[in-house]
Structure formats: C-alpha cells, structure tokens
C-alpha cells in the first residue's frame, strides 16, 4: 500500500512541473490606454503625489515572454540611441537605483507613453499599449528589479553589461542590508 501511495504522490508532483507560463501571443491592439495624466512637476496639492496603479503591471512584470519581447523592442526602437544599453548617455541611465519619476511599472509606462520634460518623447501613438508595458517591464529588469527566473539571459552577441537575469539589484548592489 505504501509504495503505491508514494508513486501516486510522485506522479502528482511530476504533474506540477507541467505548469507553464501563459504566453499572450495576441496582445491588445489599443494605443495609449490608461488615461492617467503624467504629472509634469513634483508639486502636488497636499505634498503627496498619488502613485498611479494599473493591474496590467503585475501581469507583465514577472512574465519571461513579455520581458524578452521588451528586450527585443528596446533594441528595435533604438532606446539605446539615448539610454545606451541602460548605461545612460543623452538620456538618464536605466540600470542604476535612481528613478526621477519613481520605479513602479506604472510610472515607467507613463514615461514611455506620454514622454517627460527634457527630451523623452511621447510614444502614445507610435507603440501599441501592450508593447509599452513590455518595454516598461524590461526597463525594470535592467536594474535587477525582475525575478532572475524570468529576466532575459545572455545575448548571442557581445554584451554591454551582465545579462538581465544576473543584474544585481541596483539599490542594494546585491548585498543584504
């Protein structure tokens, strides 16, 4: 009796390995959803700026497919032209712990969608909204803010920095506080 129970348990455990990440190959076509205006100053009545929230952030953040699509689009749309592989150039660095407009997915999404003062253009009409979410998720992975099990691994060609799944958390540099 006992061996049968053990086999059954093993079989159930093995079945658990069949769980696979959902891959959304038919992203929504909408342009610039989530009509939350991007604040242009840090001055807010009451002193506390409400942070925008969107339930899409959670579904894109730790999804390996979306992160790798974000990496592809980052290259295709020439983000490196200003942000230089995340190291920063004409635009600010994306791989450090400094976030001018906050580190949340929602504010990175708003930055790409609506643009920001001093150079960041608006891509509201140029990139389908789901692709903006993919880009935002990838940008977070540049500073080690994505789970290493989901973040893209090494490139096929020369790399400017360690692969995203090996990037230390920029805020702690991998050290525990």
């Amino acid at each position, binding site marked *: 009796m006992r061996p049968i129970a053990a086999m059954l348990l093993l079989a159930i455990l093995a079945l658990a390995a069949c769980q696979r990440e959902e891959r959304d*190959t038919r992203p929504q076509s909408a*342009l610039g959803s989530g009509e939350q205006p991007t604040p242009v100053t840090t001055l807010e009545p009451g002193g506390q700026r409400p942070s925008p929230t969107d339930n899409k952030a959670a579904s894109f953040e730790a999804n390996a497919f979306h992160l790798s699509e974000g990496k592809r689009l980052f290259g*295709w749309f020439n983000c490196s032209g200003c942000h230089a592989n995340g190291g920063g150039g004409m635009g600010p660095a994306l791989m450090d712990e400094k976030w001018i407009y906050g580190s949340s997915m929602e504010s990175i999404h708003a930055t790409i969608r609506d643009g920001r003062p001093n150079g960041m253009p608006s891509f509201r009409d*140029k990139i*389908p909204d789901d692709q903006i979410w993919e880009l935002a998720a990838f940008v977070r992975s540049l500073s080690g803010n994505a789970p290493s099990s989901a973040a893209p691994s090494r490139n*096929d*060609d020369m790399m400017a920095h360690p692969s995203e799944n090996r990037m230390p958390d920029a805020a702690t540099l991998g050290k525990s506080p």
Partner: protein
Amino acid sequence: MKRLASIAFATAIALFLQGCAGWQSALDPKGPAASELAWLIWFFTGLCAVVWVLVMIALAIPLMMRSRVRAEPLVLDAGADSRKLRVVITAVGLTAVILVGLTLLSFFANRTLAAIGSDAVLTIRVTGHQWWWEVRYEDATPSRILTTANEIHIPAGEPVRLLLTSTDVIHSFWVPSLSGKLDLIPGRMNVLDIKADKPGVYRGQCAEFCGAQHANMGTFIIAEPRAKFDAWWNDQLQPAAEPMSDEAKAGEDLFLKRPCVMCHKIGGTPAGGTVAPDLTHVASRQTLAAGTLRMSRGNLAAWIADPQGVKPGSHMPVVQLNGDELNAIVAYLEGLK
C-alpha cells in the same frame, strides 16, 4: 486483369511524379546547380534500387531452395566453401567500388557547384529574419545599393552570388529548382552561388525550422532577361510614389503617425525603420508576408487589420485602426508600385 493493374500502377506513378514538376522542385531543375543535383539524385536512387533488387534476389534464392541435408556434416567440402568465399569477396569488393564511386561522383558534383559562382556578376546579401527575408543588392556605388524583401530578382543566364546570414535564429535558404539548401547562421556569412538558365519564377522556402511561422517563410527568385532586370533595379532605387488621391495622402499621414513608422521604411518619407520589410515598392511585389498572401488590396487590408490571425506569432503587432484609417493606409500602400 494483371495487365490492367500494371497499367493503373504506371498511371499512378506518372501522376505522382507529375507533382514533382513546377516552380519548386528539385526534380525539375532550372539551373546548372539543380541539374547537377537532380542527376545525382536519379543516379543514386537508380543504382541503390538495382543493388536492393539484387540483394533481395540473393536472399530469396536460398529461401526458395529446398534445404539439402548433408550426408556427413563434419566432412568439409573444400570446393563449396571456396565458391561461397568467392561470392562473399566479390560482393564486398563490389560494395566498396560502388561506395567509392558514389563518393567520387558526389565530390565532383560539389566541385561543379562551387565553380558556378567563380565569375558571379552580382552579389546579393540575404538576411533571414523571423519570418521573412531581407534582400540587399550590393554595388560599388553606394547610391545604387538596394534593399527589398522576400523577392529576389536576378538576371537569367548569369551566375549570382548570395551572401547568407541571419539576425535571430538559424534559417535555411532553399530554392529547389535552382540549387541545394544552405543555412543562414547568425554571426556567420555563408556563400551560395545560383544561376537560372531561363527566365521564370522559382519558389523557395526556409528549410530549417525557425519558429512558429517557419512554414510561412517563402521566397521567390524571379529570373528576368538582363534588360528587364536592369530596369527593375533602376525602378526600385526610386523613392516611393507620391500618393495620388486624397485618401492615399491621408494614408501616408497615418502611416507616419502610427506604429507602422517604428519598424518599416518607405524611401522618400521620414519612415526609416529597418527591422521590418522595406515598403518603398511594396505593391510591386507579388506576395505579402513572405509568400503568405497574394498581393491585393483585400489581402493588404487583412494583413494590416489582423497580422496575428494571418500569421500567428509574427512580430507585426495588431495596431488599433478604425475602418477609415485602415482603408486610407491600404490605399496608400497599394500605390507604392
């Protein structure tokens, strides 16, 4: 009855082989490389068939013969043994000769293939992408370098050198009517020389599994007389045609304002993306999406409205457009001859 069956069988074989003719068949060669390979295919198949039949007969003979029980199994029959030994040695010798012979044939065929492009008049860089072909005509004059997609025009009767590479995964370039297949490998340049004897359209296909839409990664080699080819090249170098109607003009504006502009290039406009097929003369091509759809107004609209329905997994996203916007963009693209 037997006669009828054999006639039916011969007809069936003939009809079956008929399927091997046409614009994509290694058994219907239209160029020197493919002829060489087709000859090899037939010779190898024929010789192997003969050997197979002989082996089957040799196996069948002892099976049919009634076994004789030797009177004295322990007494050696020197004559019979040496006869058997001779048969085995002859068979082994013949096998060795045939194998070496076939190897030599294959070697000399390869030499012929390698010699085709020694005096190539034209160099074309073919880059594989998931799931389309980028085609770049090299020229010493930079202003005559031409980039197009999926359709490769070549002058008929002249050897052409193809430089094959890839940007994502391994693909393989195979136009069976003209040549054997050769892989497109990221970070490596492979060289394939082709020549089409006569003008015509020859279909090619990616021959290395490269992802979800591997089957829909077709290409066309269009061989034309030299004068027609030169005229085609000069036409393709021109910037895109100006939109003729108000609708097409609106379509151009939309193309430049919407996500299309992020990836595609249209010469003569600010659209300069290089990660998707060049659309400067898209309507002059015969098919859309690497041989997936025939070029027509309806298919253009279907492809733009729902690329993920036509070619699931392709990198062209579904873009939100209303009916008027879609019609305008299609009217514009349709005019890009």
